């Protein structure tokens, strides 16, 4: 029975990670077509750093992920504090609205934002992508912080006031450190979601601007540049190493983040 369990888990992980393995293998494939193995090479890793358009898309992807995750984290944290003090019914309504982007289909969220930007006459481009990403990131941040908020003992905050702290001091010195793990995981979650998003970006980006996702999508028909495989391998391995280091660190607080 134990053996069967192990086999089962192994098969599922094979299923999940087989495409990733495939992509890593392809990044070392000398042949330009996906379907043939043309020998081992690292030339795509070299040419990657000369490919302006890919580097630009990478920069754009990271910038949007970083900015949208930061903005969503700030807005999300503030609204969690606010929601915690709300009457139950008001809070339920706002949480319901918060859940809409998560429960609704990405395609509907994408086109709804597209229609909004069109009727406001906004120019499609960096700004519209950023606004959209902040919008779908906030719910993830709230989702990560709210449980920590509910665990937070309001007496601790009151104790800080009682000892003479102002509301701002009490928030930064007492409440924020308690919420920190939730805020950090909310930020990471938002960053990941933004990085991986294609559908919403697809509808809210303008011509001439691309994230990695949209660039790959346009390349699908004419064939993916092998440099893309090299880039995603680099990203994947970097994240893997980072996570390994964080997990290996003995600090308990960091463990709680993951």
């Amino acid at each position, binding site marked *: 029975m134990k053996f069967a369990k192990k086999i089962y888990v192994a098969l599922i992980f094979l299923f999940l990670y*087989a495409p990733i393995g*495939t*992509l890593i293998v392809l990044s070392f494939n000398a042949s330009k077509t996906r379907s043939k193995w043309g020998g081992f090479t690292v030339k795509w890793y070299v040419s990657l750093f000369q490919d302006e358009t890919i580097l630009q898309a990478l920069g754009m992807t990271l910038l949007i992920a970083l900015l949208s995750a930061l903005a969503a984290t700030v807005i999300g944290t503030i609204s969690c504090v606010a929601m915690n*003090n709300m009457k139950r019914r008001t809070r339920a309504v706002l949480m319901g609205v918060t859940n809409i982007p998560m*429960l609704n289909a990405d395609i509907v969220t994408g*086109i709804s934002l597209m229609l909004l930007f069109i009727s406001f006459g906004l120019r499609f481009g960096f700004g519209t992508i950023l606004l959209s990403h902040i919008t779908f990131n*906030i719910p993830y941040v709230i989702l990560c912080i709210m449980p920590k908020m509910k665990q937070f003992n309001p007496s601790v905050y009151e104790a800080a006031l009682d000892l003479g702290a102002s509301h701002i001091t009490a928030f930064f010195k007492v409440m924020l450190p308690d919420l920190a793990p939730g805020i950090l995981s909310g930020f990471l979650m938002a960053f990941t979601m933004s990085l991986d998003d294609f559908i919403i970006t697809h509808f809210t980006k303008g011509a001439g601007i691309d994230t990695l*996702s949209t660039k790959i*999508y346009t390349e699908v028909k004419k064939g993916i540049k092998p440099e893309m495989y090299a880039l995603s391998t680099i990203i994947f391995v970097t994240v893997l190493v980072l996570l390994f280091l964080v997990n290996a660190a003995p600090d308990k607080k960091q463990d709680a983040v993951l």
Partner: protein
Amino acid sequence: MKYKKNILAAPYVLWSALFIIIPLCMIFYYGLTDKSGAFTMENILAIASVGHAKALWRSLLLSLISTILCFLLAYPLAMILAGKKGNQTGFIILIFILPMWMNFLLRTLAWQTLLEKTGVINGILSFLGLPPLRIINTSYAIVLGMVYNFLPFMVLPLYNALAKIDENIINAAKDLGANKIQTFFRIILPLSVPGIISGVTMVFVPALTTFVISTLLGGSKVLLIGNVIEQEFTQASNWHLGSGLSIVLMIFIIINMLVTALLEKE
């Protein structure tokens, strides 16, 4: 204790009104009007046309199959993972989140390489003397792509629900004479219902509405309702029709939520 904190809610209330509520209203506005701005039901009734109805039916069928497959694959996995000693939640979430750091379009495309006529899987099959698998550019490949992409969304809520069950509840059931199968169906399964519900929603909705997976793995042969809507917006520029079909899509999402909510009550 009203420390004027209600002001703090203002930014997000404003944001959600502007970027969640109003955009949704716009879909309804476009969906229920024609190009001249007059009210019409045509965009919604357009779902009945042969091509659209077929795409919707196919989407429903494929997403339903994918959801069931995800559930059947994920439940045993979640049980095995939840049965592990010690708190491994962090590690398990990590394992399932990690693939997200490799672009999902590329990961899905990688299945092309694996499934192709001369691809890796068929190479292994022919080496074993088995007949080749010819599913690329068919509905089967799309189902596979859906299960692959959305399996983590089924595993995580199931794992969370199962890991929460107190071991003593299961012990109590055994103590009262239930065997393994009875314990599973009478105790474990009912207690994991919240996990099942969020898992089903998190798989069914994106599977029903996807247009990417069908584009990447279905060739251009298999159209889903998501593809139809996407084309109305990006190619045909008929936002009214696209919005109308989106409303239909949302109706199915709401039906799914209602059904799961009803199941939860029981």
